[in-house]
């Protein structure tokens, strides 16, 4: 069933999908990947409002190295990942060491994402400031350039991003399996209890954070190369950081496919509203989206998919109870 769905998904674009639906599908998977990356740490109670910083590093480092030094994204990406790891470590280690949690962790990471945005804007001579930047094209006389990681075909991008997304889900599962139940609980709440049985909570948290940050950074690379345009507001700062958090929450950050469902719902909602209302009414789609978010967090904190799975679980439990009774 799972595999059949995957095959359908993988083959769908070959069945003559239009450019626009294909673009939407790619965006769903790309943001699904980024939201999943965030949720890998978010579900453990480490609510980062700073993932815009990692996304921004991924997007900008690769584009800037390509444009200013002619360094291929194949080399630029590892550089961006190393830089992300350093930043995540520098922020994460003291936070976990000194037990900065909850509001405080959220606000420290919020400061981080603002630093990233401001640095991008301040380096306007190199980055183009708030106008954004476009990677120098390598597609002048061919449809694709592997070295520059630029492809004019959306189909190629679909498969690249599909693989990334699947890898993200696989990592989620690996994290789940490699950590004992106790470790997971230790991270999210019973920190002192875990420390007393000799668990190195700081190291566990740091590991998860690094993983999450690196994946998000990679998402930033893919975003920049696919869109061939980066802008400080769309890849860093408080706006995108909150968008990542909310996408994951709407879908359900405690279940594996939740963040992806969140990405799909938010993207489709925006598109449907745009088609229904047209471009004339600025802000209506985000108004409804904002209202939904508020209602979600109040009434359905487990998200759409989380709530559905829970309801199914309950029904199944009720059925078994009825059967045994």
């Amino acid at each position, binding site marked *: 069933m799972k595999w059949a769905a995957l095959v359908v998904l993988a083959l769908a674009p070959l069945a003559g999908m239009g450019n626009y639906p294909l673009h939407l599908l790619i965006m769903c998977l790309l943001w699904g990947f980024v939201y999943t990356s965030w949720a890998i740490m978010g579900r453990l*109670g480490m*609510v980062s409002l700073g993932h815009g910083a990692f996304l921004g590093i991924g997007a900008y480092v690769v584009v800037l190295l390509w444009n200013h030094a002619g360094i291929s994204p194949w080399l630029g990406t590892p550089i961006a990942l190393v830089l992300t790891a350093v930043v995540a470590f520098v*922020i994460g280690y*003291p*936070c976990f060491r*000194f037990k*900065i949690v*909850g*509001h*405080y962790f*959220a*606000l*420290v990471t*919020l*400061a*981080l994402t*603002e*630093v990233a945005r*401001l*640095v991008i*804007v*301040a380096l306007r001579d190199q980055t183009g400031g708030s106008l954004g930047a476009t990677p120098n094209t390598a597609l002048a006389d061919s449809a694709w350039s592997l070295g520059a990681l630029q492809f004019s075909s959306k189909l190629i991008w679909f498969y690249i991003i599909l693989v990334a997304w699947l890898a993200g889900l696989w990592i989620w599962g690996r994290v789940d399996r490699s950590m004992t139940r106790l470790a997971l609980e230790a991270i999210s709440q019973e920190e002192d209890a875990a420390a007393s049985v000799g668990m190195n909570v700081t190291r566990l948290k740091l590991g998860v954070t690094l993983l999450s940050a690196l994946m998000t950074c990679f998402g930033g690379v893919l975003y920049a190369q696919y869109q061939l345009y980066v802008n400080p507001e769309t890849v860093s*700062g*408080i*706006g995108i950081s*909150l968008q990542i*958090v*909310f996408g994951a*929450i709407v879908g359900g950050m405690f279940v594996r496919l939740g963040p992806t469902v969140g990405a799909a719902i938010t993207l489709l909602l925006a598109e449907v509203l745009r088609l229904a209302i047209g471009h004339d*009414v*600025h*802000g*209506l*789609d*985000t*108004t409804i*989206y*904002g*209202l939904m*978010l*508020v209602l*979600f*967090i*109040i009434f359905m*904190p487990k998200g759409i998919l989380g709530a559905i799975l829970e309801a199914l679980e309950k029904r199944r439990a009720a059925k078994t109870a009825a059967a045994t009774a």
Partner: protein
Amino acid sequence: MQVFDIFLLEAVVNGILLGGILALLALGLNLVFGVIDVVWICYAELIMLGMYAVYYGHNVFGWPLWLALVFGVAVVAVLGALLHQFVIRPVLAAEPINQLLVTGGVLFFLQAVATLAFGIEFKNIGIRLPQLSVGEMYLSVARLIAFLVALAGMIGMYLFLTRSYLGTAIRAISQDRAIMPLMGVNPNRIFLITSALGGGLAGLAACLLVLQYDIHPAIGLTFGPITFMVCVMGGLGNMIGGFIAAFIFAQFISVGGFFLHIEWGYVIAFVFFIGMMFWRPQGILGSK
């Protein structure tokens, strides 16, 4: 060298005046933070709506400026109370992080509503206060007023909190919410009043910002983060700490901006904030 010094001095003095605005921005957020233990991530968006309220009062309805300013304060005060009643109250028992996130949802909502209602064009009330020249320095009159209002707001808030029954109750409720009914206090009523007060202070900040800045739906994002940093560095709910932190941040921004560029000023301030969090997570005045 002489010229250089006078410009540096101007940056320092302007930094002090900017500190006044930041202190005023932080005051309301700190009050709510300290009493209800909830961060209004959408605080700056309330200010944004307050600025629109002043604009509508003055430029659309044609009211005199003072009335429009009073209107601005009143609108945000009501919004603060509504925010508490309909958004915060249902999640008071939920996990702290949900309380933070729900106001983040409100942030999106308010921004979108403003876009929907007021459009994305920049608006301004058409009043620009002059620059004041002191010796060879030029100082912003609007900032000077903001500084004085912030100072008056601080003193007024201090007197209210220490001298009145309501103020004492507001301080008490953050220390022991559960026994407030035994004092004959309805905790929800105190929370509502506090939220309205916090909103009113945001409205006051809006009145001063509208004299200096153009209004647009996303303006909250430009000074929201710095306001959180000021509050946290001052020690959540510690108003005096917040006041001091405001001036420290303002100097980083103003002097840093003078030597480099205004964004670098902010970058230095934020990096300083992150460093401070590791060194003194309980705020500059807190004790370990």
